């Protein structure tokens, strides 16, 4: 087989050519996929918004604003849902770091009166099969249509009204804490709009 000799020029040249070809083709593919990647990320937020808000005709993503709090490291995002300029609900992204394996990030949709429409888990690292039941319909349904003003978001063990998932009390606590945080933020910023941030 006609292998090239391992001279210095040959070796440098070969590696150089391979690297250049690899670099150029990766650059090209990066350009091609850049758009779809950004789109896919946006799509995730849009899907979550559609799940937790009633029908809206504004663009909550463009109207979104962020808040810094001392409670959690991540900034909190508020997405207003509107129909013809009238606020019909708000989706709030809040998180808690007290999950069994750390961060739990959720999106909570509220009606203008503060009652919960729906909740979606955005990020979590909980134990598969136990803590991950926070995504199950049966668990979420106990929060739906409840107003945290009258519904105590603590788990029953802590004298609240939430049924903890069997074997995952810590997860449930963190989840409820994030919901509470989202509610508190909503109440503090009830009248605010993006413009008078």
């Amino acid at each position, binding site marked *: 087989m006609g292998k090239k000799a391992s001279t210095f020029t040959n070796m440098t040249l070969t590696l150089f050519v391979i690297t250049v070809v690899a670099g150029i083709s990766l650059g090209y593919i990066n350009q091609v996929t850049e758009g779809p990647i950004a789109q896919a990320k946006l799509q995730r937020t849009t899907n979550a918004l559609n799940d937790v808000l009633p029908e809206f005709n504004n663009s909550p993503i463009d109207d979104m604003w962020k808040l810094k709090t001392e409670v959690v490291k991540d900034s909190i995002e508020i997405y207003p849902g509107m129909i013809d300029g009238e606020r019909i609900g708000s989706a709030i992204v809040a998180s808690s770091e007290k999950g069994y394996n750390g961060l739990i990030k959720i999106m909570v949709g509220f009606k203008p009166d503060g009652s919960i429409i729906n909740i979606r888990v955005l990020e979590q690292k909980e*134990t598969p099969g136990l803590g991950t039941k926070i995504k199950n319909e049966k668990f979420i349904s106990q929060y739906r249509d409840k107003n945290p003003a009258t519904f105590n978001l603590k788990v029953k063990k802590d004298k609240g009204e939430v049924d903890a998932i069997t074997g995952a009390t810590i997860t449930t606590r963190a989840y409820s804490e994030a919901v509470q945080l989202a509610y508190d933020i909503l109440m503090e910023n009830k009248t605010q709009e993006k413009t008078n941030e």
Partner: protein
Amino acid sequence: MEYILIIIAAVFVNNIVLSQFLGICPFLGVSNKLSTSVGMSGAVLFVMTIATLVTYLLYQFVLTPMGMEYLRTITFILVIASLVQMVEIILKKVSPALYQALGVFLPLITTNCAVLGVAILALGLEDASLLKAVVFAIANAIGFALAIVVFSSIREKLELADLPEGMKGVPINLLVAGLLSLAFLGFAGLV
């Protein structure tokens, strides 16, 4: 305090081998003797720390400013491969004794996914800083060492055990690894 948490988390709670499944190849491959697994751990500690240091700096100060984050994988693996070569050459010159101990393991490390894995994971740490990335790398190397040393000690004893025919070799090793991993699961929720 923060650094202590990182260390405990990396060594026990999210042990790189037993709960993250990185570095399984050397874990199963060179763990038949306690002495070889100690040598491998030393080599991993060495390379993992330097590799994470270099790749972190490279990512923060070269790739990110140039908007070429997508070249991460290719750059990191080249850095690791050439680092391993360099470490080999330098060790040979500077400390022949250390080279004697670690030499045979160094070439194997290029394809040890724990090294590349930790370099990538270090980028995703919260409030990442260079010091934090290095501490993270050292902690993971210790976690690797702990897992492989315990595992090889068990395997040395197991060689004398009387096993059913089908269990011999790979299956019993995997089962032992499974039980070890189960033990480490007990640390979950600690941090």
